[in-house]
């Protein structure tokens, strides 16, 4: 386990947020996968993956994200992405992930989305 980076998990009432703050390459994709699994195992059903400080995701990381979104759905949870930078947004555009997951530019938009679901 790479100890240089410690993803910050924070909880907002019903929502669990994982702030991943590092590019994902082949070097750390397993660490990224572990962090995402931990997020999925949380008690909350509304999950946010914040990527504000991420400028690059390789294809393996995209696989992890897609897998996590689908797995969350199977467990009656919802995982959304937030804080998407232009470089990452470009990648998501290529893989058309927006067709099956919510992607927000701002983190607050993700909170607003979950709030609106509860209303």
């Amino acid at each position, binding site marked *: 386990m790479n100890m240089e980076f410690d993803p910050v998990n924070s909880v907002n009432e019903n929502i669990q947020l994982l702030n991943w703050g590092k*590019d994902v*390459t*082949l*070097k750390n*994709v397993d660490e990224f996968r572990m962090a995402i699994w931990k997020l999925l195992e949380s008690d909350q059903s509304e999950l946010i993956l914040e990527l504000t400080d991420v*400028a*690059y995701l*390789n*294809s*393996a990381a*995209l*696989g*992890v994200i*897609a*897998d996590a979104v*689908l*797995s969350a759905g*199977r467990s009656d949870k919802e995982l959304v992405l937030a804080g998407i930078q*232009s*470089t990452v947004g*470009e*990648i998501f*555009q*290529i*893989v*058309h*992930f927006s*067709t*099956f997951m919510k992607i927000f530019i701002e983190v607050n938009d993700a909170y607003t989305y979950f709030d609106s679901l509860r209303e």
Partner: protein
Amino acid sequence: MFIFILLVLVVLNLYNLVFIDKRFGFEFIVDLLTQCVILTPLFFMYRQQIANTKKLFDSEQRYKSLFLYENAGIYVVNGNGLLDSISPNLLDSLGYSESEINNQPFSILFAPEDLAMIQRTFLEIIKGTTISSSRKMKIKNKSGQNLVFDFSSVALMVDGEIQGVIGFAKDITELEKAQEKLSVVQNQMNNIFQSIDIVLWSLDVIQQKRIILSDACEKILGYTVEEHYSNPNLWTDRVHEEDKEIVTGRMNRVYKEESSSYENIEYRLVHLNGEIRWVESRLFPVINSNNRLVGINGLMIDITDKKRIEENHRIDLDLARQVQKSVLSKPIYTPVFSIDARYVPSQELGGDMYAWYHIDEHRYGILIMDVMGHGVSSSLICMSIRALLRGIIQSCSNPEDVVKELNDHMNKLFSEAMPATNFFFTAIYLIVDHENNCIEYINAGHPSGLLMDDSGEIHILESTGIPIGLMLDLNVTTKIIQLKGSARLILYTDGLIENPGTLMLEQVNSVKNIMVETKLESMTVVMDTLLAFSNINKQEVPDDICLICMDICSEKASERR
């Protein structure tokens, strides 16, 4: 008093001699002799008194010293072996009252198995053959609880005769228990120390002396601990020639107190029987209160088996890479269609793959794919797809059917076998059709392909949908690009343009620029230039790369030529 009387007599005699008799006569001599007769017994009595006083003082001191022995109880046993007296604190420890214990034989306190020895010692003291005895004994208190006492006994002298035994007894039960526990722990530690396969050692830096070395060193090197102690350089001497610099370099850094010197290192040792052994070595500094390095503790773990497994794993991975590489399509060079590719594997097995097939007289089907993951599972998915690909491409007439077939395969095969796991891949599948002079393609979430026509204009084969295998229903539409002459087409996986922090658009623009710059060059030059560009931004652990280059020439144009 005796001295005073003597002085008074001397003064009186002198007075009598000088002032009354005024001569040294017979009467005076008789007086003196009379006084001497009277004083002589007095003198002896005086000497006796001094001796007795000193004895009493010494006795008092010894008595006081007994009480200085903290928490010790005092006992007196008479010549018949009966308890004469016991101090209150000793009575408390034993749980008896004074009336219960006094005049009882001391033997009632001791275990039967100890009695013979105790009685022998008692008799030896009483007879005067033993002056004192000191030993640790177990006794039972009134409630039957076993206690451990430290007994010190000496003869009790009265009027110069031995009348019994006196001594003190200190309750050391708790101390014994603590020592017993400590001994158990110590034994366990020793057992661990002697039995583990880890070599533990400690070096006194000041005296340059090895102070601890565990037995495991014999397993690693074949030499006994004693041999290591007698030859302090033995370990260093057995370090593999190629690793000596690593080992000595680190020790030098240790003495310079560089923090990096405490990082783990792995190196080889040569066993007595000539075998090579790998060890992992860790150091821990011992720093004194003056912040000075005074010692080094270290441990060494035999990692030979781990290294063998790693080596076998590496060989397996190399083999898997070779197998993966061997199924990649071979280049085709014809007047109307040329296709070639480069595959640069990552350290681990990757999920990138390409393949092409001649569908019919005028058409080629080409696929580039990237499984969204890495490692053995991704590689196996690649191989699985590869096994199906020929049949799918040659039986399906258009790209939509091919991609849907692949999607079904991914969903049925992998998702049904492992429902909790999702496998998917990005891909571009395209058909080069020489008869209709066009290409038909589907880009399923893959980085854009680039097609450059005769004029140097570049068309982008953009992604038109989600990766294959992600959803049961995959809505894809085939796109068609009509060719107006010859064209060059580049397809690649994301490893080629991986450059964290840079917009993918910028990276793609760089690829486009290279295509334009190398327009007149062969495909080999184009691919080598692109790989060189990719190397500039290489990551510490680079992703694998697939790169396909095609030159397409219309059949009509070819015929004209």
